[in-house]
């Protein structure tokens, strides 16, 4: 989390915002809109929902600012609020099936674009990443995103998602395994024979 180190300014904004200064809170929103929005986008997979979730996360932070523990990193606290909000959104979404298209296997929708053979190892656009994250449990997805996009430690993930450190480790392991399997199946059509020579790359 080196990217979002607490500055003196941040401490001042938080203090002023806690005393009811809305302009100070707007400064916080301005500073953290990208990490919060990016998290929501990775969790929910589309711009409209991500915008709404990011806005709502900031509003929740605003309402609960007096509960913020200054010993904690502010951005960790903020992203934890956003994670929980997105987890709730995904749970609600799971309960209402939008269309029959949602029942089709992911592979059929995700790949088979022209020229796929040339760069099948590149998950170049957000849509493809979304497909890889799709179908993974809400908390597992949040753990993956916090680990890979925000460089959270196991401890920080555990704190943010109200899990034990061992639970985080086992969830991450299971999810990596699941994603790697899926990735492997997705590309099997293009992979002929073993690729023993690539093992040395690790």
């Amino acid at each position, binding site marked *: 989390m080196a990217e979002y180190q607490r500055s003196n300014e941040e401490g001042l904004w938080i203090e002023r915002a806690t005393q009811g200064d809305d302009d100070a809170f707007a400064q916080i929103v301005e500073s953290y809109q*990208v990490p919060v929005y*990016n998290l929501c986008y990775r969790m929910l997979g589309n711009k409209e929902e991500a915008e709404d979730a990011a806005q709502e996360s900031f509003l929740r932070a605003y309402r609960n600012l007096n509960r913020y523990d200054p010993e904690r990193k502010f951005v960790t606290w903020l992203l934890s609020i956003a994670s929980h909000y997105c987890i709730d959104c995904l749970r609600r979404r799971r309960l209402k099936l939008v269309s029959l298209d949602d029942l089709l296997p992911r592979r059929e929708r995700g790949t088979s674009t022209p020229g796929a053979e040339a760069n099948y190892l590149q998950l170049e656009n957000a849509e493809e990443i979304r497909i890889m994250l799709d179908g993974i449990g809400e908390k597992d997805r949040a753990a993956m995103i916090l680990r890979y996009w925000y460089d959270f430690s196991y401890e920080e993930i555990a704190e943010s998602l109200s899990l034990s450190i061992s639970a985080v480790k086992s969830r991450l392991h299971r999810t990596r395994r699941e994603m790697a399997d899926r990735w492997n199946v997705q590309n099997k059509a293009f992979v002929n024979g073993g690729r023993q020579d690539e093992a040395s790359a690790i």
Partner: protein
Amino acid sequence: MKHPQFEALLFDIDHLGHEERIALEAHLRECEHCNVLATSWRDLEGNLISAPKMEPAAGFTERFRERLVVYKRRKQERLTLAVILAILISLIIVTGFFGLELLTFIPSVISLLLKSINGLVLLGGLLTILGDFVLVLLEGITQSLPAGLLLAIAAATSGLAVIWMFSIYRFGFNTLRKE
């Protein structure tokens, strides 16, 4: 070490010790299953890490400010509604507890009101009579006295009134200052 243990190492390469690393590399040269899994994960992880950071549309903070205004207004509305509801509920509870007593109290309240109205009517009549009497008295005085004398009496009375008010004002002011 066995197959599943190597799988566990595979997904935690950043945290491996030197010996675990060597053991894993040796296993990957022999086991095709783990090898395929390892390369798949390596490609996928690389793509996850290098994925671009998504940014919101311009004006995010302004949109937040608007949302905050709406939130505060709704909060105020909810508060008002809660106060009204609390009053209503208290009224219902009070009526429920003291309903019977209130019912027996109502006739006496009505009779009290009627008596009060009667009293007010009587007082009004009395004031009218007093007004008529003062009017007659004034008419008598103005007819029997010359206009010049009347003006002099009026001027003297006004002067006395001014002096009286001024003295009250001074007296009151001094008392306040002493306090």
